[in-house]
């Protein structure tokens, strides 16, 4: 059983890494690289609460959730990449203090925390704020690999990328990940036992499972051998806490009396304990979140008013819907060829932490690329075609991410009488959205200088940001894109001909 579990664990962890590796322009050939994220019941449930639908592939979550009602939290030990990593690192360090295992693996009241966290996240979701991604293990581990571990590979000299990706705030993401792995040294599977809201959800579902670990009371001598290797901290030696059991099956093999088995109830089995929750604490949590959430909503953020720096990838839903769907998994940032997609800090408010924004200082949106929409598991970025993005028939207009503006105080031909127009050169639209007037101006010494002074045609500009990225005024470009005019918003518009702003 244990060997079989290890086989599965290795397989699923390998599959997870394979998907991450495949997420690339050259390798992405219709594989369902977002399968893990889509099959995540917490994402599915919360996404359904915020948006009212179970988007496409997220129906896979039922494949995990429904069997949990019968067989328990099998996902945690057999499939979850973070659970597998926790278990593995916990095992690596397990040799350090062998005598302590009985105490380390005993159930603790702190294990309740995850249920409160689950409650918080679900209440937020019911109120329209999707924050599960902060603590959802699949989103978290995907994000950590993409923004922490993968860039690190290049930094230490493994040429995984031609151009090493950099992510703003990536060090925070890396530190969080390292911290939660190291926590296994203090308490094995710390994350799974104490924090994981997905584990909590599956634990609640497992409460009704007819298949579970059963202990024959008569055969058991109370030696607690099972506890030494227990992953869940679920007290298999006593009245088992079904909601905590990860189905690692270590206990079965440890019991010298063969008193433990997995199956349906039989005569002589011990009874099981139900969820250990403090009802008052739960109520307090519910009330606190219910009060905090509207207060947070009353603060200025990107879904209350358009923000100049909140430029979303092509095909993104309108901001409110986008925030109701994005789980901050960073899949889009993994595939983006130019590294323009960055985890937002507080550009759009607290709600949008770690959601993707385009930072043109780092990259630009590649004209023929639509990869981000193809890997987004939740549909926050719709999967659009290149034709739709470019506005080629049958589409009337290209997808516009924002509009570029000249900073005439920094632009070389404007401010310094120096020829340039790199922005015009790189502009990918045809006709080009940047045009210029030929002028002859007196220079400092009175000599005339022939110049081409550039302008943006706001009707043609698609906001791709390559002008900003390639502008030789490198620290803060002389042409910069802001979100105004973005296709996805009816309100964030400045031109009458793009439609009358409705809000």
């Amino acid at each position, binding site marked *: 059983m244990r060997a079989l579990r290890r086989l599965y664990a290795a397989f699923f962890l390998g599959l997870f890494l394979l998907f991450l590796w495949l997420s690339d*322009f050259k390798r992405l050939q219709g594989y369902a690289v977002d399968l893990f994220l889509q099959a995540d019941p917490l994402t599915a449930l919360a996404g359904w609460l915020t948006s009212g639908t179970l988007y496409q592939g997220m129906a896979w979550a039922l494949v995990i959730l429904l069997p949990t009602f019968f067989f328990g939290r099998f996902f945690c030990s057999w499939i979850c990449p973070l659970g597998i990593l926790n278990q593995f690192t916990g095992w690596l360090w397990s040799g350090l203090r062998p005598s302590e295992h009985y105490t380390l693996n005993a159930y603790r009241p702190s294990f309740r925390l995850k249920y409160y966290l689950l409650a918080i996240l679900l209440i937020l979701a019911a109120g329209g704020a999707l924050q599960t991604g902060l603590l959802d293990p699949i989103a978290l581990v995907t994000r950590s690999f993409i923004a922490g571990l993968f860039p690190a590979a290049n930094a230490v000299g493994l040429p995984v990328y031609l151009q090493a990706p950099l992510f703003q705030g990536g060090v925070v993401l890396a530190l969080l990940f390292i911290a939660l792995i190291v926590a296994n040294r203090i308490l094995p599977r710390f994350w799974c036992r104490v924090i994981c809201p997905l584990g909590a959800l599956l634990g609640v579902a497992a409460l009704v499972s007819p298949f579970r670990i059963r202990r024959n009371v008569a055969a058991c001598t109370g030696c607690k051998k099972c506890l030494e290797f227990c992953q869940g901290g679920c007290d298999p030696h006593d009245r088992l806490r079904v909601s905590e059991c990860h189905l690692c099956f270590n206990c079965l093999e440890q019991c010298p009396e063969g008193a433990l088995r997995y199956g349906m109830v039989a005569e002589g089995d011990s009874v099981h304990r139900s969820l250990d929750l403090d009802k008052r604490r739960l109520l307090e949590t519910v009330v606190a979140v219910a009060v905090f959430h509207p207060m947070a909503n009353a603060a200025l953020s990107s879904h209350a008013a358009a923000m100049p720096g909140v430029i979303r990838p092509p095909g993104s839903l309108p901001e409110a819907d986008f925030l109701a769907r994005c789980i901050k998994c960073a899949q889009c940032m993994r595939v983006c060829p130019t590294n323009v997609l960055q985890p937002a800090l507080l550009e759009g408010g607290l709600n949008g932490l770690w959601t993707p924004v385009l930072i043109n200082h780092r990259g630009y949106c*590649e*004209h023929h690329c639509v990869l981000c929409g193809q890997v987004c598991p939740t549909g926050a970025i719709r999967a659009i075609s290149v034709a739709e993005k470019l506005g080629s028939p049958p589409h009337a207009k290209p997808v516009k991410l924002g509009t570029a503006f000249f900073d005439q105080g920094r632009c070389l031909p404007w401010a310094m009488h*120096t*020829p*340039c127009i*790199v922005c015009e050169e790189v502009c990918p639209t*045809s*006709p080009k959205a940047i045009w210029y007037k030929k002028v002859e101006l007196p220079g400092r010494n009175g000599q005339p200088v022939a110049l081409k002074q550039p302008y943006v045609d706001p009707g043609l500009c698609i906001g791709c940001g390559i002008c900003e990225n390639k502008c030789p005024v*490198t620290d803060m470009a002389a042409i910069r894109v802001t979100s105004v005019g973005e296709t996805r918003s009816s309100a964030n518009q400045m031109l009458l001909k793009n439609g009358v702003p409705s809000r």
Partner: protein
Amino acid sequence: MLRELALAGGLAVGTGAGGWLVFSREPVRHDPVVARTLKDFRVAADPHYPVLAVVRGQRVEAMVREAVEKLGGMSRFIAKGDTVLLKPNIGWDRQPQQAANTNPEVVAALVRLCREAGAKRVQVSDFSLNDPPRCFQRSGIEQAAREAGGQVILPGQNDFVLTRMDGQMLKEWPVVRFLHEADKVINIPVAKHHSLSGCTLAMKNWYGMIGGRRNQLHQDIHTSIADLASAMRPTLTVMDATRVLKRNGPTGGNPDDVSEENTLVAGLDEVAIDSWSLRFFDLQPTQVPYLALGHARGLGTPDWRSLNVVESQIG
């Protein structure tokens, strides 16, 4: 007591010696970066052969063969065992019919010719402006060159070496290291419109071999182009004018901006090749200052009429 004294003394001496060793008047220690010098890749001039060979036709492979044949055949340029670097324009994430990059068939034909002439290795590289993997794939050049037996290299962060350019503007600049490692170099530009320099042809194609903030060179684009062309002297140049991007260059994107010209111009004189190609843009050599600069530096002559030019039309 003696031991303590010895220890203290030893530490003091050691610290003093260490301090003396690492002392410097510079706040930061730098390794002196030695800039390398580029080779001259040209072969000897030979009055038996024309300076420019212009070939018009439909079948690209045959046109390339004809052009090289007119100039004396590939064996005039490539010796057995040579490592040859081909430098097409692979700057943009565009497809061949949009004419923003060199025609992949031209590249493939040259790869084959070099191989037939006994080249040990034929490398194809360029430093793209858009995302390199996309540019190489969607331009069709990666596949075409590979199938023809070439080795396709996407320059990465570490593939640039500081190089002495000895130009007027460009003194030292990072250059792709494959250029240093090659024995022979073939420039394969594509004729395109460019609003700052008027057009981008053979001399401007060398932008694709340099790294750094090359955008800054636009501030004096004509001098920069002349500087680049003086530093990089290719073995052979084959200008692709099978499709010419007439407007909205150098990126293009709109098939309406492309005109089918079905022409190749090959030769050793980049200034002459560029001047000859101005006809696609209704420009005169006097309107393109870098040609005069190139002429003044002895890179070639804008007056192609004075040269031995052979034109041929094949099927």
